[in-house]
């Protein structure tokens, strides 16, 4: 019995991790259409999105 419980604690599987390298999704409106991720924006539109200031 003693043997078994030691084995258990020693061999506790390493905690599984999720999401390594997964980026946040950022939906933005361009021209009128929405775009699901900034990755697909062309360089100019990325720059424009970056410069936007709030109006309130």
């Amino acid at each position, binding site marked *: 019995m003693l043997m078994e419980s030691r084995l258990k604690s020693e061999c506790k599987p390493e905690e599984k991790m999720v999401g390594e390298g997964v*980026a946040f999704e950022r939906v933005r409106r361009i021209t009128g259409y929405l775009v699901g991720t900034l990755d697909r924006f*062309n360089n100019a539109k990325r*720059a424009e999105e970056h410069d936007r200031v709030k109006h309130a």
Partner: protein
Amino acid sequence: MPACIVKRDGTSVPFDSVKILNAISKANKAVGGEDMSPTDLLFVTEKVCRKLDEKGLKHVEEIQDVVEDTLIQYDYARTAKAYILYRAEHTKIRNAESYLMDIYKKLTYSPAIEEDIKRENANIDGDTAMGTMLKYGSEGAKYFTDNYILPKDASAAHANGDIHIHDKDFYMLTETCCQIDLIPLFRNGFSTGHGFLREPNSIESYSALACIAIQANQNEMHGGQSVPHFDYAMAGGIIKTYRKEYERAFVAFARIKGGMDAEQADRFFRGIRVALGEGVRMGSVDDYGRRMLDIVAAEDRELVADAHAYAAEEALKATERRTYQAMEAFIHNLNTMNSRAGAQVPFSSVNYGTDTSLEGRMVIRNLLLATQAGLGNGETSIFPVQIFKVKEGVNYSEGDPNYDLFRLAMETSAMRLFPNFSFIDAPFNLQYYDGSYNSEVAYMGCRTRVLGNVHDSSREVTCGRGNLSFTSINLPRLGIEAHGDIPRFFTLLDAQIDLVFRQLLHRFKIQCAKKVRNYPFLMGNGIWLDSDKLDWDDTVEEVLKHGTLTVGFIGLAETLVALTGKHHGESEESQKLGLEIIGHMRRRADEEARLTGLNFSLIATPAEGLSGRFVKLDRARYGSIPGVTDREYYTNSFHVPVYFPIRAFRKIDIEAPYHAMTNAGHITYVELDGDTCKNLEAFEAIIRYMHDRGVGYGSINHPLDRDPVCGYVGVLNDVCPRCGRREGEAVSEEKLRELRRKYPHMPTCHCR
């Protein structure tokens, strides 16, 4: 005279002065009023040969330089110019192969993240096989159009960045977009070329067929597709669904409580229905019940009354549920179905908000609720672009029949960025309004607007029409070139407008030569206005005249800075000049429309790829000018620059008057932060202000982020407020399990 000349590929061939003489002669014949006699030709050739000897030149490019110099030296300036053009033309043709092949190499070997050319259009995945195939075709077609189709001056003006001919790859092929009237299409059934679809009979089929119609049309045009009255169009499906659900429940009740068998119950119900002469409607169901009692035998009255009450309740519940599912499917389909060789989801837009029937309201409510719920993992749906039509007396004010839906629309937009809002009460939209859906303004997702019609003033309608093509003018460049001289600016502008009108007509002629058979869906099924009157082999010339030919512009803000030092957000004077400029462009479009009987019009260009292209060319030409060429983009159309701090109401004040001028489309954005936007009163105040100031189409932008790992939707700065991870970091499965207890609808992360 050199014994031999060195060609471009390095090989040598014997020198032949006759070739020089012939080239000069050809150039001379190409221009009028500078005729050279054979003696003149010999004289110039002789001079060229002597110079070559003196300088010991024998490379073909050097020889051509000497020919140019000599022609100019002996006052044959126009011949020299023709010679230079001829030479440039041939250089271009020689460069063709290497130019195209360079592009193909980029498309083939570089990932989209590195190559801007693969990200021109954010809704095409340039990394996929079909996305790349589409780009091969597109780049080849542009080349063909530039070099073999376009008038030389238009081609040069596009290449050097004076103007931008949008969708140039489709120059020889089709038109931009169409506002589809689904109601007659469904009534008659339709064919996509591989089998016929009968009239749909349930809300599920209505929504499925709507997707198919959008997709089929998208494959025949180069822009987007819209349904201008989605509520009215889907309501028919709900009427049918409700009727069937009512009948089903009534019959079930009669079987269970009235002790009838299936056939008896069916016959019993059918007898009543035939006697009443019409099917039941949601809005008059109580009345229907009363009329039933009047016609049935006394001993059946109790059963009928109970069956009716049960059926009315069940039918409403079932129809509501089925409508939600149909709207959910509609959104899912439009985000997942592909068009154009599988490389692109259709650019779809749906307008709605004004149908006050119970059925129409059910469509709107469920579409909004399904939009709030998002896609399978709670993602925000990118398509369709949704546009809620705001109208006084219909949905604008408390007490209006659809005011509750206007509120729900704003709540949805604050959560999901859609719907946008269009304003029928803006004077330039209201002038066409007669209460019918076909007189209500609709907008395409990109902002295109088609309503007025100089070709046929009895058809100033929304359905079955769209834009044919549009070309934008580089306004900031004209601002720079004018050097502060305003009259000069307008002279330069007029020259560009003339060129664009000519080019639009050139393209229109090509479009007109197409036949119905080139558009089996759009024209073959009668979707485009009046195309139902044409035969398969008729040209589409007459019916295309219902469409719009449109001139656009970009960078009013930078133009004003170039001219006056200030943009219209920071100076009243600049605003006045801005209105003069855009007003002038509109007048020119109106004049051209009157002259030609064609729908020339002015758009505040959406400009996705264009936003960076013009400024890049202008910075190379003029250097970095503060407030003009010093950013990576020109400001969209008439917008106040995105970087300029300004209050929402003030921004709307400044931009609203441009909406009245840009009859082919416009949009105004207000940017809010995540928290303000959750305040529905603040949100409503801004939308109402847009309405009151005469904005045609507007929407509120706010950051909308999502963590795919835990499904959190909202604003994400560095750390996800739900699962606590930083972008790119991992979290433990245990933590996610814990969170799932708290958020049962949390998606399972399918991330790698």
